[in-house]
């Protein structure tokens, strides 16, 4: 499958330093991959990506990707109340809290 992919803020700097294109690029992924699989494939460690937009909304990292999806990776550091208002913090709390 092919997804469209963006990385913001520090994530962009990290990927660029490794020569990985990350501004509005198409990328081939194996069928059945989740967002987390994709983050791992790019080499990010735990905590480096706080939240992920999937087709314009913040979604759990366990979500399975599909052909044509649009993915944007967001590292920690979203200013203002937007971390709350966009649901970034709530999703992050949910994902990092021990069950």
């Amino acid at each position: 499958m092919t997804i469209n992919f963006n990385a913001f803020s520090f994530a962009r700097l990290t990927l660029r330093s490794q020569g990985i294109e990350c501004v509005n690029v198409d990328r081939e992924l194996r069928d059945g991959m989740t967002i987390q699989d994709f983050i791992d494939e790019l080499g990010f460690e735990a905590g480096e990506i706080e939240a992920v937009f999937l087709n314009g909304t913040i979604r759990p990292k366990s979500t399975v990707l599909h052909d044509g999806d649009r993915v944007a990776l967001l590292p920690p550091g979203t200013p203002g109340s937007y971390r709350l208002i966009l649901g970034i913090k709530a999703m992050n709390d949910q994902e990092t809290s021990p069950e």
Partner: protein
Amino acid sequence: MADKIYRVRMNDLSFSVEDVPKEWLGLGGRGLTSTIVAAEVDPECHPLGPNNKMVFAPGLLSGTAAANSGRTSLGAKSPLTGGIKESNSGGTSAGIMAKLGVKALIIEGLPEEDDTFYHIHVTKEHVTIEPIPELVGKENFEVLDTMLERYGRKVAVFSIGTPGEQRMLISNISVKDPQGKIRSLGRGGLGAVMGSKKIKVITVDAGDSKETYLADAATFRAANKAFTKALKENPISGEGLPAFGTDILVNIINEAGGLPSMNFRYGTSENAEELSGEHVAENIQERGGKTTHGCHAGCVIQCSQVYNDKDGNYVTSGFEYEMIWAFGANYGIDDIDTIAHIDHIMDDIGVDAIETGVTFGVAAEGGMLPFGDGEAVIKILTEEIPNGTPTGRVIGSGAGNVGKLYGVVRVPVVKNQGMPAYEPRAIKGQGITYVTTPMGADHTAGYAVATNILNSGGHIDPLKKEGQVELSRNLQIASAAIDSTGMCIFVAFPALDDPACLPALIDMINARFGAELTGDDVTNLGKNILKLEHAFNLKAGLGKADDRIPEFMKYETLPPHDAIWDFTNEEIDAFWDF
């Protein structure tokens, strides 16, 4: 020495220095300005007439060594919204006023009707009020430089440019920053109030006044250390803001489909990458600007920036998300350097970035000029507005009025004030803040967060109504409290992750005044301020029907999420149930 109220009467050019009434002792910043405006200004008065007052107040912690405590609040009845207004800004003024012991500077009355403009100079227990004909018709940078030459660099300066002199509704008030550049008391057309009182410039000189008095210096120092540590170690205030500034939001809000574009027609912009914080930071690095810059001396976060042109020459500082959005996404200019140039012009003449950008969007919608035409904007800002031509006055009257003049239906205002950079249909929590805040469509009203009142447990979907009214209410209560401390709003976010942050802030307030406030007291302070401001607006004639979103947002869906405004009136009005 105890703090004093300095009062200037423009009707007879006199002043008095008064003791602080007991009820005002524990207040500062927005809490104090709103309390004084509510107590002394007739809500039904004309905002540009003799009965409006301007109240300048430093925050509770301003003038101390507390990190990020240098905000000055200005309160008045707004000529733009017709309601109460508090606008706050960084710059050097809060620290200087606090050191001089100025709890608040109240300016009332109107001078005789002639062409005279005045300069108010505040020193220890004294105020001079003198005509300043040589600066009439001049813009802010010239006024600022003249004052710094006269008094040295340590003086605080508030000034208006020609739009303020002409009482235009988009005008703001400039505040000197530590580098001799400009920050602004931006929203609500308060520059017009200063213009109506015929005041061109206010300077405050603390002379050799020492550090602000602390009731318990040792406790204060320890708390400030903990507070500063929390700010520096947080990923937002410690890394994200210094590296990219507030403009990092362009890509994020665009991705969320909430970046208002082409006068609030779309939720994403084709220009997002050009406008993005990542791109601005790249330019700054290549051209030798600065990604970190503080708007006042005690800032440890430094979200502000210094932006240079392609040849490495200084263009502007404080190049913020709201400005870049207003002219880039909303009005459609696809070149970041043109927007930086416009930012500098707007600092110089003294107009609010948000109101002016939204006004150009509505003007383009009405056919007055094309979308995205940077040259046309520059011409209006540098020729038409300073000269007060009919075209200049039309743009100078703000988005709501331009919409009426051109028969435009898509006019993104609440209480006649232009909406900031977040689409209320796609980011509904922000929309609730726009309609309910007593300030008119304002984003900073609900910008800050304090954990003790924030139930952030449940999942928030910005496209859905659930939980939004409560979220907005908690954000607004926290913001009202933070705005009273003199702290910049960004101190509030580390508090979400670091439980040491907020108690340290409260410890500092207690150590400064010898008080025993708790977290609940601070929450109650925020609630009281909001209620007081709301009551003023009700008396001024701004009722429930004014707490509403523009109608087009209820029947036009916003791409890409096809989002719509679907709150009922009852749901909105429930905001005030606290």
